[in-house]
């Protein structure tokens, strides 16, 4: 017996919990540590097999906002589209398809009055919420009222704030008056999900309703469970009003690291790589993975160098033209983006029926750029940088810090601009700072940015190019370029009040021409997203008008 044990015996205390001996205390500590650990077992074969009853879709951001009317990000919409329905939704070709509405309202069918002020919508009969409660016109009225409710944190009220005198004509018919004609409202409605009055209308505070974490919709899938930080599971809704979903369970898995997401795609742990999918540097390899199908999907996002026209450097149109001439677009696309994106001259996605394919094509021509600046009187100083009337062609360029490809683009542009006597310094910021007031209130000089200019497929871009949308000048909108042009304002006003697609077409073709001439932003390319799925998954359809690929899981099936 050791000295220590003798000592303990002498104390005569063996109550392990109140007066543990040293050995007992150590034993307790070890037992505690061991208790945290589950028994080990061998790894076994882990190359995951696909399950015919389940599809696992991975996102690199975590969907958390389940009330579709509250501020949210793209991946949240990836869930919303499966849980909820709008009145009518937008098809890949840009046409509206009835969802909760029995038909898409138009001037032709009398759903919209010819002046655009009166709307009347017939609703589908026999639709029920996931909890069995019937869906009625009251839910539609409630949804629009909720968006305009001052105490509700609606993500945006644009368009809805013009709605007046909502009238529930019958359980399957609703009408209202618009304060003024607003052609984009149809597009806004096509992404406005209807929420249940009986669950959100009765609670004290809709911002923190239980519904927001256990949503009930009318969609092809219904809420199953969420494991915070890991995944969300949805189950097939057998009573869906349209053709019900095929696959029983849709799982949305959160995989924060893009390299890991790609690895899990290869190992088969996930069936579909959703946002942000496969990075361009994996493009070559991803083409040749057996058992996997690589998708190259055009997206509506346009990458550009946005200029702040409030800065004296950018007020001369010749300067903007010269800057555009001095961008080697082809090299940027081929060398830095692996040839994936499509070069573009417009802010309008090329899949849009309003896309203007006749715009002059940019060429990379340093001589022409230099000549243009010489003619305009911008003379090189001793340091090689041009100046005119005390304004040096020197400015900063910013984008999200840590976006490596964009940082390379910046460095590339910096070099070619330097050759025409322009000094661009790079000043990147973390995302929360970059896209905060620095961007929205035009505190930048120039920015490399990807913007989806459209609301759904609607061509109205008043928010981006209308002179009343300049936040830095007290306006409400995203005209961070501070672009103000009388003709553009007139075109936007005409197009915004017109309900007829044929009459709107020439208006927006001309607007694209104008933007291409004025160059408030130097368009680089339209994005192509790389996604992939396990072979045998069928029914996927890309929709360039939406922000997320998993909008139509109900049509997916395993072969």
């Amino acid at each position, binding site marked *: 017996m*050791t000295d220590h044990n003798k000592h303990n015996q002498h104390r005569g205390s063996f109550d392990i919990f109140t007066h543990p001996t*040293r050995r007992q*205390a*150590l034993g307790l*500590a070890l037992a505690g*540590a*061991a208790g*945290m*650990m*589950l*028994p*080990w*077992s*061998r*790894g076994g074969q*882990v190359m995951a097999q696909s*399950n015919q009853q*389940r599809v696992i879709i991975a996102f690199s951001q975590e969907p*958390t*906002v389940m009330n579709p009317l509250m*501020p*949210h*990000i793209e991946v949240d919409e990836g869930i919303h589209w499966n849980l909820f329905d709008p009145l009518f939704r937008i098809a890949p070709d840009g046409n509206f398809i009835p969802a909760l509405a029995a038909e898409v309202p138009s001037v032709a069918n009398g759903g919209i009055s010819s002046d655009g002020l009166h709307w009347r919508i017939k609703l589908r009969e026999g639709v029920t919420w996931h909890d069995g409660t019937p869906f009625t016109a009251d839910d539609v009225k409630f949804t629009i009222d909720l968006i305009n409710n001052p105490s509700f944190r609606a*993500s*945006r*009220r644009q368009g809805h704030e013009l709605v007046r005198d909502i009238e529930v004509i019958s359980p399957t018919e609703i009408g209202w008056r618009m304060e003024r004609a607003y052609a984009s409202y149809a597009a806004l409605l096509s992404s406005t999900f209807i929420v249940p009055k009986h669950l959100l209308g009765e609670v004290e505070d809709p*911002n*923190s309703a239980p519904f*927001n*974490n256990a949503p009930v919709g009318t969609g092809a899938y219904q809420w199953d469970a969420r*494991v*915070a*930080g*890991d*995944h969300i599971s949805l189950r097939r809704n057998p009573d869906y009003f349209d053709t019900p979903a095929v696959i029983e369970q849709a799982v949305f898995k959160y*995989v*924060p*690291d893009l390299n*890991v997401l790609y*690895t*899990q795609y290869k*190992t088969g742990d996930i069936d579909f790589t959703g946002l942000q999918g496969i990075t361009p540097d994996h493009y070559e390899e991803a083409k040749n993975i057996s058992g996997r199908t690589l998708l190259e999907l055009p997206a509506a996002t346009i990458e550009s160098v946005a200029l702040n026209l409030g800065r004296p450097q950018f007020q001369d149109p010749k300067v903007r033209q010269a800057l555009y001439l001095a961008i080697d677009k082809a090299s940027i696309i081929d060398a830095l983006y692996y040839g994936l994106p499509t070069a573009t001259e417009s802010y309008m996605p090329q899949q849009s029926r309003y896309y203007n394919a006749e715009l002059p094509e940019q060429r990379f021509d340093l001589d022409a750029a230099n000549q243009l600046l010489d003619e305009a009187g911008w003379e090189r100083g001793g340091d090689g940088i041009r100046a005119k009337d005390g304004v040096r062609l020197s400015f900063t360029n910013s984008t999200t810090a840590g976006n490596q490809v964009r940082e390379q683009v910046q460095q590339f542009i910096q070099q070619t601009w330097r050759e025409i006597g322009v000094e661009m310094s790079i000043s990147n910021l973390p*995302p*929360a*700072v*970059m*896209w*905060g007031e620095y*961007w*929205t*209130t035009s505190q930048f000089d120039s920015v490399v*940015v990807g913007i989806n200019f459209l*609301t759904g497929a609607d061509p109205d871009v008043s*928010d981006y190019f209308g002179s009343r*949308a300049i*936040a830095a000048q007290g306006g*409400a*909108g*995203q005209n961070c370029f501070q672009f103000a042009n009388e003709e553009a304002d007139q075109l936007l006003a005409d197009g915004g009040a017109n309900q007829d697609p044929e009459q709107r077409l020439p208006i927006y073709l001309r607007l694209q021409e104008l933007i291409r001439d004025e160059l408030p932003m130097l368009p680089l390319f339209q994005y192509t997203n790389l996604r992939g799925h396990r072979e045998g998954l069928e029914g996927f359809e890309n929709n360039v008008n939406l*922000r997320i690929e998993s909008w139509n899981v109900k049509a997916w099936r395993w072969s």
Partner: protein
Amino acid sequence: MTRFLIQRFVQSLIILVLVSVIGFFVLNLAPGGPLSQFSLSPGMSQAELDRIAAQMGLDRPLPVQYLDWFGRLLGGDWGNSFRDGRPVLEVIGGHLPATLLLMGSSTLVSVVIGGWVGVLGAIRRYSVFDYLATIGAMIALSIPTFWFGLVAIYVFSLELGWLPAGNMYTIGDQSLSDYASHLVLPTLVLALVNVAIWSRYMRSSTLDVIGEDFVRTAQAKGLSDWRVLRDHVIRNALLPMITLAGLQLPTLLGGALVTETVFTWPGMGRLFLDSLGYNDYPVIMGILMFSAVLVLLGNLLADLLVAVVDPRIRIS
């Protein structure tokens, strides 16, 4: 003893208040704010952002916001996440089990292996084993965890197909063996660094004890080497480890930022990173306060435990 505890309690409260003040104001000093992530959404304007900020009370002066938050905290209300709207404590509670599992298993592995490597290195000082252990520890400490994690996934999941490439379990399986197989890689990656740390501490602690008179006395009495080691050396060498373990408590529950990201592990580390990324102030503040409490608690526990285990120390 009671006086000691009361003193500690008062000290801790002061520290907690200080932590909350500094944390809150530093957090709000960073430009951008929780709504900037929405600014590139189609149709979003500064006016809409301002409206939402006002609805969330984010337009009020900072001291007012702080007092409001602190007042609620005293009443037991930790606030709600800006992201999913759930109570902060519920959000934290939802991520704790995953972290406990991972950190618990890796700590166990690293303490057991690290402890033995340290002891062996000390009693065979300057042997080949000691040199290898020292060099190994230096390498393990120098390798970035994310690199080691990615390599481990590449080798064991992609190439060999022995173990899963991350995640805590297979969706739809969730058996005990499924959990265990998912636990192996992240545990080993995390343990690698911790083995290095524990072995270094254990080695120097053992070396200190080996030179003591009572060890020579025990040897002189004719005790076997094993018994000297077991009963006299290791037991005494473990004492400083208790303090170390106490200091490890916060990391045990705080999670591993990098490892949890690489292995898609839904723990506290991920929660913290995501909350920072989205400027989810209530959750960040919640985690901050939670960690501060853990640090204080860990220190207190270590002090008490040392006193319990070592009869030479009495708390007064």
